[in-house]
């Protein structure tokens, strides 16, 4: 405290004070210039001197922590966080003291700036952001945002942008709008600043023709032309296309950079106000598009991205083009998305080439071209790791390290390709970022189940790989015997390394996922009650009214043309909330169905029954999950020796005495369809992704037949069981379980000839010679 200048001034000797001040001031400047030129050793030396002169000045300690972090090549984020938190605590304690002073008048001129911890807090949040802890970052910035008015504009902007990026990463549309509304008020691009939009609307027709001519490549450069050609031809043939794209990218790299630097460097130019506002305007417009993309308001996003292109035309349009590409991707126009992605030019920069590859990979995944997608994703990962090796390390290059996100994409891809072990590894890595997301845990559980089906689980041969029937032919001649073995023997892959996937793991993952889902549902309902948004929107509404006063009638007209008023935003948000609610509902059904399945596999019918019952109690469930709920409940009840109730579940689908209706239709398999806009240009692409994993309605019907037959058979009603199993085998001629049930019934009624004949007919039965050699005893 003694060494703080303003206090010292009070003690007298103003002359000394001034000298000290000028010395420290000069040192501070030196430290800053060393810092800016990346000479962190020298910088720290000076900071140590400063610390001697001004013992425990939190700001010196703060800058020391930052410089140390950079000196160590940004390697020790944990220490940085600890240091920054210590500094923050310290300055908060110091800030309390003057307030506690009894006589307010004497302290009036002590500036609180000295102990202001805003910068420290911001840096803590930045660090968490780079560690991908977006929710934490938001919660740290929240208090700053609540009191943002007094802050310097530069810092305030940094806080707001960081919050916007974090909110986007968390899919938190409400928080996003809160922050965006503030920026909108302060910098006035806004949802619906009328005159701006009016004027740009006139421009835009002009501009649109320009871009479209760019796309049709008539006026474009040669490089662009070949890009497009590659993209175009690529869509015809996967392998070829992919090579073309790669070749193009390589060619681009060899060319000198064209000078596309993605926007986002505005904070450096912040000195001049005019540039600042213009760039912020572009930036806000881009954020607006990202919000609309987040809330899946494709139509509006299309309009706003045009507006962004207009603002960006004089500077850098790569970000706008990238968003446009994302928009087309969201819309299902994959060709267009590829073109725009190439035009955006982000592949030319080392910093963003990983992003390019990832996004292209997403598109190819949606096209069902998994091979190409997997190459692209692994390229993206390679780009990221080469970025990490960059020297000198810059912090932003860490945040540009999107490898964990790309790894998640890889997981989704591997799962779709039927490679559960690889997929699980990816998901487990990505869990660093996504561990709070219920979907991640469901995906890991799905990996376990897929591994189970493929017989890749440890001890899979004993649990229940039921894909094949084996009949051991034992003995020779008159002693020849047949031994039926329903549990196929699983050939274990050559590797001695066992995957860690297991059914108990699936069980844990599913309950994690359910827990997280319930938490997020609870939070949602809470935020609905509070609804800070409506207040905020009313505020801005009033403000814009008072600004524009009597020009109202005029502006309304323009608004209808090109603007975006609060109602639209509100609608967009509530539509998004609806979508999320629907998705969460579907997720819940999926979780319960998987739980019931896993519990049955783990031979725990009580838990399976309770999961299936909860599934059946959900309102408005998908027909598929209702069917699964019934069938799992029936099996669990049968295992619990309650055949009557089991029968009730199955006979829900009974049509007449001996027939079953289809429990669901193929259309029920497209739960995402409803989110797709109807004017999707390439509708054929939309469904490709889902087709492979579906359960066919006809198969479901067959399962009903077979299971009712099995139920009758266990009760000893073989005559009743017979027609049902016959039906089941007509629907599912090679089904292992149905065949076994049929064989069982044959044997029980004493027709072993029929049983063997049946076994011989079924293509999934293999007759294997006895395994033991005769030993002389």
């Amino acid at each position, binding site marked *: 405290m003694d060494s703080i200048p303003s206090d010292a001034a009070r003690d007298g000797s103003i002359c000394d004070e001034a000298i000290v001040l000028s010395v420290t001031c000069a040192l501070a400047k030196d430290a800053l210039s060393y810092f800016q030129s990346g000479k962190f050793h020298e910088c720290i030396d000076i900071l140590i001197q*400063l610390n001697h002169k001004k013992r425990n000045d939190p700001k010196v300690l703060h800058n020391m922590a930052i410089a140390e972090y950079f000196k160590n090549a940004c390697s020790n984020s944990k220490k940085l966080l600890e240091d920054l938190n210590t500094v923050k605590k310290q300055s908060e304690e110091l800030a309390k003291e003057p307030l506690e002073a009894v006589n307010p008048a004497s302290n009036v*001129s002590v500036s609180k*700036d000295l102990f202001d911890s805003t910068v420290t807090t911001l840096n803590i949040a930045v660090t968490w952001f780079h560690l991908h802890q977006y929710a934490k970052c938001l919660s740290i910035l929240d208090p700053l945002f609540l009191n943002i008015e007094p802050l310097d504009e530069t810092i305030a902007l940094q806080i707001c942008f960081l919050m916007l990026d974090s909110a986007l990463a968390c899919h938190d549309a409400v928080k996003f709008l809160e922050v965006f509304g503030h920026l909108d008020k302060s910098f006035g691009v806004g949802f619906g600043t009328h005159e701006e939009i009016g004027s740009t609307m006139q421009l835009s027709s002009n501009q649109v023709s320009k871009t479209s001519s760019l796309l049709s490549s008539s006026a474009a450069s040669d490089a662009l032309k070949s890009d497009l050609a590659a993209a175009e031809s690529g869509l015809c043939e996967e392998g070829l296309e992919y090579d073309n794209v790669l070749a193009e990218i390589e060619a681009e790299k060899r060319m000198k950079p064209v000078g596309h630097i993605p926007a986002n460097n505005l904070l450096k130019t912040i000195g001049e106000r005019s540039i600042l506002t213009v760039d912020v305007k572009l930036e806000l417009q881009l954020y607006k598009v990202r919000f609309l993309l987040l809330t899946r308001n494709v139509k509006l996003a299309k309009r706003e991205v045009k507006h962004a292109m207009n603002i960006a035309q004089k500077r850098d349009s790569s970000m706008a083009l990238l968003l446009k590409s994302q928009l087309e991707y969201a819309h299902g126009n994959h060709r267009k998305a590829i073109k725009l992605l190439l035009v955006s030019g982000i592949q030319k920069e080392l910093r963003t080439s990983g992003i390019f590859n990832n996004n292209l990979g997403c598109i190819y995944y*949606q096209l069902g071209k998994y091979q190409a997608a997997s190459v692209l994703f692994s390229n993206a990962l390679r780009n990221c790791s080469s970025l990490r090796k960059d020297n000198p390390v810059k912090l932003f290059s860490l945040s540009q390290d999107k490898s964990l996100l790309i790894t998640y994409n890889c997981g989704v891809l591997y799962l779709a390709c039927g490679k559960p072990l690889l997929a699980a590894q990816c998901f487990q890595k990505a869990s660093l970022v996504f561990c709070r997301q219920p979907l991640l845990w469901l995906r890991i559980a799905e990996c376990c189940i897929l591994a189970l089906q493929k017989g890749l689980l440890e001890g899979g041969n004993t649990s229940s790989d039921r894909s094949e029937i084996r009949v051991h032919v034992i003995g020779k*001649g008159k002693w020849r015997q047949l031994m039926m073995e329903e549990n196929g023997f699983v050939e274990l892959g050559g590797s001695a390394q066992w995957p860690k996937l297991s059914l108990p793991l699936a069980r844990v993952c599913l309950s994690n996922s359910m827990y997280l889902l319930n938490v997020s549902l609870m939070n949602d309902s809470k935020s609905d009650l509070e609804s800070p948004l409506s207040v905020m929107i009313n505020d801005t509404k009033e403000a814009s009214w008072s600004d524009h006063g009597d020009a109202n009638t005029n502006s309304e007209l323009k608004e209808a043309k090109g603007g975006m008023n609060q109602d639209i935003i509100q609608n967009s948000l509530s539509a998004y909330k609806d979508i999320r609610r629907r998705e969460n509902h579907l997720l819940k059904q999926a979780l319960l169905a*998987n739980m019931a399945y896993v519990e049955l596999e783990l031979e725990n019918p009580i838990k399976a029954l309770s999961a299936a019952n909860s599934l059946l109690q959900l309102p408005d469930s998908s027909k598929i999950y209702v069917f*699964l709920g019934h069938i799992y409940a029936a099996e669990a009840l049968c295992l619990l020796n309650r055949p009557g109730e089991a029968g009730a579940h199955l006979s829900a689908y009974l049509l007449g005495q001996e027939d079953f209706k289809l429990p669901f239709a193929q259309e029920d398999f497209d739960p995402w369809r409803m989110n797709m806009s109807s004017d999707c240009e390439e509708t054929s692409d939309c469904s490709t992704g889902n087709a492979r994993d579906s359960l066919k309605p006809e198969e479901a019907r067959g399962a009903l037949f077979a299971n009712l037959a099995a139920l009758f058979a266990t009760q000893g009603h073989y005559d009743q069981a017979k027609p049902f199993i016959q039906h089941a085998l007509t629907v599912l001629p090679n089904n292992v379980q149905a065949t076994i049930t049929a064989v069982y019934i044959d044997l029980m009624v004493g027709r*072993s000839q029929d049983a063997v004949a049946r076994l011989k007919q079924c293509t999934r039965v293999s007759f294997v010679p006895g395994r033991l050699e005769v030993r002389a*005893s």
Partner: protein
Amino acid sequence: MFNSMCHSLGLIEFGGFGSMLQDLMLLRSTDRIIAFAIMYQCYPSQKPSVNPFVSDMMNAACNEQVEKHERAFILHLLQWNSYNKSKEILKLSAVDYIKSFDPSTHDFPELGELQREYGDKAGSGPSSHIAADYAVKKLLHDPDVPRGCDPNSPEFDVQPGGNPKIGCGDRDEAVTGILGSLTTGGLAPRWIRPCPPRYPVHQSELLWIDPDNKHELIWDDKMCADTSRGATVRDLLVKGLKVTLSPSEQEDITTALANDAKLVYHCGITPRKLPQLVEHNPQIAVEILTKLINSPEIVDYFTALVSMDMSLHSMEVVNRLTTAVELPKEFIRMYITNCISSCENAKQDKYMQNRLVRLVCVFLQSLIRNNIIDVKDLFIEVQAFCIDFSRIREAAGLFRLLKTLE
């Protein structure tokens, strides 16, 4: 003899063992007797009903096709009808037992009787669900072997040294083969358990990446910086809480505030200090409040303004604020109510009261003329006020203004 067999068969899993015994054709009679002995010896000290093989044994004992000596052997093991010779019998070899067997000394009970005695366990093993209870044995005769073929006839036995004939086979080979392939459990009806479909991948689940802004760690450039930012203003304002500032001093403050938009937040005027500033320097107070209008704390400043004592200066401040910024309606209303009640409370000093009333009337007229307030909101309150103080000229004037608006 039994002990040596025990050893060689000791590894056999029990469930399959039972099912093999049911097959009459497979094992020789002596082998079967040995097998039953093993079953018994596994649980020698317990009651027969505890033995998990008891149902197999009962079934064999009541099976008419089984040789009588075998059935009697089992009955001995089960200690049926107080047969107690099991210990002696077990000392014999199987061949000797069969030789010494005398069928006339035995009678054979019905299955029902045995079940009543030893319990009615339909199945065996730890399995709890009914599917397992209804399991059927997994072993079948190859139906290609002609039905009438008697495997015990030596016709198709493998002759040592001889060429194998078609259809010849070796009993021991079959038995060991079966034992090698046996597993627990029988064949039960199987349920089709459809796997839940994979949760659909929405295109938003795949992560499309946009480059972020560069969120760099920032250097705190306020370190050791000149803390005199706004120091002069702060000092002037401290002075301004006590005395009216000179025009040039006021000018200094206004310019400093205009140059640095955020300075107002650091100038040291808190809501608590506002009333003092209003009393001595109303113009500066207006300046500061106008700049604080976006601050989250502005409500506190307004509250301070409403609750301070009524004065010419506070009214001046409010009046000027109404023209400069948009004030919350509740605030203005509260302020007017406060004005009116101050007038009513100042009864002791008639002179002061008159002065206050005239001020309030002028203030209200100005608000009404500038369309700052909607008279309808406050009509009754203001009218009553005018009537109360109708002796004062300005009140009468305000009353007339109200009437014209009516």
